[in-house]
């Protein structure tokens, strides 16, 4: 039997039982589509998170006060105070390192912002002009905090888009005065809309000069220092420099934690990849069920087509050829089902993209390969028993009995 004959034979069978073929295609299609869509969701979430981290800036290191002896705790949750503060002077000393391009000290806190009679509680961020370059922020109107000695402060502030509209309504906010706590600030800039970024909404913050924030919250202690290394290769040296410089300033005590953006990114990447793989695997269980269905239908087909198989054998077809015929049929069904599934999965992905344009839904390449491959492999595996049963039929008995 030639390959074309094999294919033709299988095609005749597949066409001959349309209802049956349709149902098997449906079962396989559901399985493949489920795997594709679920992994697309997972991959979309992963890419979304990575993008969010990427938008924080490049080659970023975060210096935070305090250090934990026990491993395991996420460094990000290390909140709270330390007896020896991380100060502005510590941050300024970082200028000595050759691996560091720029840095921005950060103080954060909750403040009640008054403008006229309107009051709104927002996060208040104290920082320097460098913050804009490090975080890749954009100013829509006016300008960002002025350059200059961070120890001195001018009574100016930059507000998020939402804060501006909430406090001033349709009035232009630029040049207006607002009051935070017991200090007054003039609005010199309005941030471009950036939206939510890892739970922190830049549309809803007020940025003031560092010295002003120090006075406002009555604290010397910095919350974080954001450091940008000169290049990707320099990140390691920058980390070492930061640790060493601050250790020397803190009387030889290592009491800061330096985390690199890459480390955080890698952790998230790993977790989300594992999750995607897990849900993809769960969805793939349905492919096994579809495989069971194929086996069942093939077994019935062997019984129904006894005479046909008997005739083939009587005409000289070997057991191997009969087996091949069944495998070809199963593979045709599986490939057809996989194709249907891929198309449906793609449609579902498109729909999801339309609904949530912010998240880049995209099935990972391994899922696009693995889902059809799994479909074909399960189909072949589950056809082994029926195919062997068919191949072993005795032609005389198969033809004689009705």
């Amino acid at each position, binding site marked *: 039997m030639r390959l074309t004959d094999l294919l033709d034979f299988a095609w005749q069978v597949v066409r001959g039982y349309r209802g049956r073929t349709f149902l098997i295609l449906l079962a396989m299609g559901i399985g493949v589509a489920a795997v594709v869509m679920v992994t697309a969701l997972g991959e979309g979430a992963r890419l979304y998170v990575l993008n969010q981290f990427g938008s924080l800036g490049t080659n970023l290191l975060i210096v935070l006060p305090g250090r*934990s002896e026990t491993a395991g705790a996420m460094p990000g949750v290390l909140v709270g105070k330390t007896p020896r503060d991380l100060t502005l002077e510590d941050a300024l000393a970082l200028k000595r390192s050759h691996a560091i391009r720029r840095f921005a000290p950060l103080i954060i806190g*909750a403040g009640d912002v008054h403008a006229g009679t309107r009051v709104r509680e927002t996060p208040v961020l104290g920082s320097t002009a460098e913050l804009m370059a490090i975080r890749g922020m954009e100013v829509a109107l006016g300008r960002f905090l002025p350059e200059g000695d961070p120890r001195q402060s001018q009574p100016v502030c930059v507000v998020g888009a939402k804060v501006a509209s909430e406090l001033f309504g349709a009035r232009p906010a630029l040049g207006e005065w607002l009051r935070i706590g*017991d200090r007054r600030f003039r609005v010199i800039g309005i941030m471009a809309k950036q939206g939510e970024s890892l739970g922190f909404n830049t549309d809803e913050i007020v940025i003031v000069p560092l010295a002003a924030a120090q006075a406002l919250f009555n604290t010397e202690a910095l919350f974080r220092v954001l450091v940008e290394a000169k290049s990707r290769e320099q990140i390691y040296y920058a980390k070492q420099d930061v640790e060493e410089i601050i250790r020397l300033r803190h009387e030889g005590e290592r009491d800061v934690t330096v985390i690199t953006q890459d480390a955080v990114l890698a952790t998230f990447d790993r977790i989300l990849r594992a999750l995607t793989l897990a849900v993809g695997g769960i969805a793939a269980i349905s492919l096994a069920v579809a495989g069971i269905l194929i086996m*069942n239908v093939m077994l019935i087909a062997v019984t129904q087509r006894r005479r046909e198989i008997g005739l083939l054998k009587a005409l000289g077809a070997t057991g191997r050829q009969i087996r091949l015929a069944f495998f070809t049929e199963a593979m045709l069904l599986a490939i057809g089902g996989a194709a249907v599934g891929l198309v449906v999965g793609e449609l579902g992905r498109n729909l999801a993209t339309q609904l949530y344009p912010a998240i880049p839904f995209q099935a990972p390449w391994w899922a696009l390969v693995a889902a059809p491959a799994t479909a074909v492999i399960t189909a072949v595996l589950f056809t082994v028993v029926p195919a062997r049963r068919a191949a072993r039929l005795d032609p005389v008995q198969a033809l004689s009995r009705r």
Partner: protein
Amino acid sequence: MQLADFIRFTYGSLRSHRLRTFLTALGIAVGIAAVILLTSIGEGLHRFVIAEFTQFGTNIISVAPGRIQTHGASLGGVNTVRPLSIEDALALKRAPYVQVSDPVVQGNADVKYFGKSRRVTLYGVGPDFAEALKMRVAVGEFLPQEDPRSARALAVLGSKVAREFFGGDNPLGSRIRIGGERYRVVGVMQSKGQVLGFDLDDTVFIPVARALEMFNRESLMEIHVTYDPTAPLVEVEQGIKRILIARHGAEDFTVTPQQKMLEVFGTVLDAITFAVAAIGGISLIVGGVGILTILIIAVAERTSEIGLLRAVGATQRSILMLFLGEAALLAAIGGTAGLLLGWAIALLLQLALPALPVHTPWSYAVLAELVAVAVGLAAGVLPARRAARLDPLEALRSE
């Protein structure tokens, strides 16, 4: 047709094709097993998280400065222009139904003892902290009851800190240095282990006023308030708000009852469990397609039999019921098998990985079985109707 006949007939047709029945039921069984296993893990996780939280008691309310929440924590805990003071905490003791009100400030400090040094999580707390969070003292006592505004330099160690510094020796009465100041050890806490990433044994507790001084800060991070468990939560919350608003002139703080947090966690975890179970349930749908396929084939095979039945007086309705019954029975068998399979795997998982919380509630088992039967019935409708609509004459002639 009598019920007994009906059952015998269905049973007979399932028995005559044993392999077919087995495979069809297997399809459903795999689906149900997946759903049961996944929901068991989800439910186990849910219980685990709830247990982690409720070990501190359920009747706690946390009051934090500021009203903005990011990452689930109050930003006011970091810095705020509207501080919460120790006096606020003392004032909350007078709120209705309140049992204990305890100020908290948390930080990270270096602890030294005879040349050994260790960075630990430092908690500045009031004398009622242990009672509020249901934590037990293993040796000695907790910080004594005294005016929290002018407390003595006493410290209570977490079990890990005590072990690292003193080994098997008795730490009581020893003097340690925390952030450059000298403290006398008066107690050691019982081990609590890690709770959601925080190691509660790598901690030192000192009086709150001293911690505020050490950290050079004026605001507490939060105030833990416990209330009479039988009291209505709304009134407790209102009482707390009334007192603090009277003291501050505005609502510049956040009141979070533990129960609300538990509810939030509960909904999130339930949603995840549901989503994962739904993904697992896709295989159930595929199993349903399997039943549909097999029944359609069966109807085609048994056309003459159906014709005979109709000829001897079986109504369309009874033929319909016959095939629906077969579908439901197939699904029910598969469902039961899947239930046992999923349950067995869950038990094995529990034995193999004791750390992984697994729990299968009875309600889920019943629900899964019902879902299986429903899937079977839904899959049976089409073939059963096809069988019922067969023309008896045509059907008989097909022989």
